[in-house]
């Protein structure tokens, strides 16, 4: 069992703040790795989600209901 699996297998009432921070840090690292994977796939463009949000916001600003 690896570190993070061991933390998830433990009674959460026994976890310390350091344990929770460790889980968060490991998840952040996994996210970074996932995002890096996208870049290695060959795209040099900015990530799609932020572009979509800006586009959506601009679109909504002009709509009156």
């Amino acid at each position, binding site marked *: 069992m690896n570190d993070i699996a061991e933390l*998830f297998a433990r*009674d959460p009432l026994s976890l310390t703040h350091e344990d929770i921070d460790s889980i968060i840090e490991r*998840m952040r690292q996994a996210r970074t790795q996932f995002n890096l994977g996208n870049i290695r796939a060959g795209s040099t463009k900015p990530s799609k989600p932020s572009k979509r949000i800006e586009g959506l916001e601009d679109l909504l600003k002009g709509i009156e*209901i």
Partner: protein
Amino acid sequence: MNSSFDTAGLQFAWDSTSLATWLDCERKYQLTMIENWVPRSRSVHLRFGGHYATALETYHKRRALGEDHETALRNVVETTLVASWSHDRDSEGNRISGTGTAEEFTDNAKTRENLIRTIIWYLEHYKEDTMTTFIKADGIPAVEYSFSLPVDNDIILAGHIDRLVNYAEGIYIQDQKTTGSTISAHYFKQFSPHTQMSLYTFAGRIIYSAPVKGVIIDAAQIAVGFSRFERGITMRTPEQLTEWYEGAMLHIQAARKATKENHFPMRPSSCSNYGGCMFRDVCALSPTVRPNALAADFEKRVWDPLQRR
């Protein structure tokens, strides 16, 4: 006892779940809302989505009350880990440390670990979001709001709004969805027309006395190795809301009439929707053996639209 039904046994308080069930199939409405049958094991998708929505609601509430990102994030991770662990309880209902096991998620992607991953990744993804929680006139952030709105003919519309937000110079209701599928423009098309989104926009405009334009849907794709997020919006004009309301009231009256007459025919065209109705195997049997099939695979649990979360 279901507080959403009157003494004559007719439903007067309606949420989007019960209304959508009625619109799906009269027999399904009878089995779930009148007879209270639900599957013995709660769907993994409902449990995962429930934990996820609760965590994000809690995070936004804490942030709106002034807590910083890191503290609020740590809190929701901790509370979600506890909420997804089945501790034994003492006589007062408190969790007993050192007991129980992790909640089991019978899905490759929607696991407990991936639930925590999705919460963290979502809050990192939208860390610099321009969307802010709407603060009501009394100074309280509009998060986690269970509403019951009296309308015509002694009917009450009820529901639970995750969060009201300011976004792109407008006011919207925010709703969280999770899916195993890739999120495309097609995914968001399912929300218009859509009972829940229309009801929430309709109710939001009255409850908050604010010109709510529609619902912003933050959808999370949950895969085995990653979680991905997309934001979509479904808007409603006042004319659309009037049209929806008039239709909803007609459907509600029809449901009450059917209940009075105890007349709930099947609607076979709905049996295969959303991966197949949970009652399909029961309805496929001869009527005399259906009670045994229900008792074997289902249990009684009341869905009460007026019950606050």
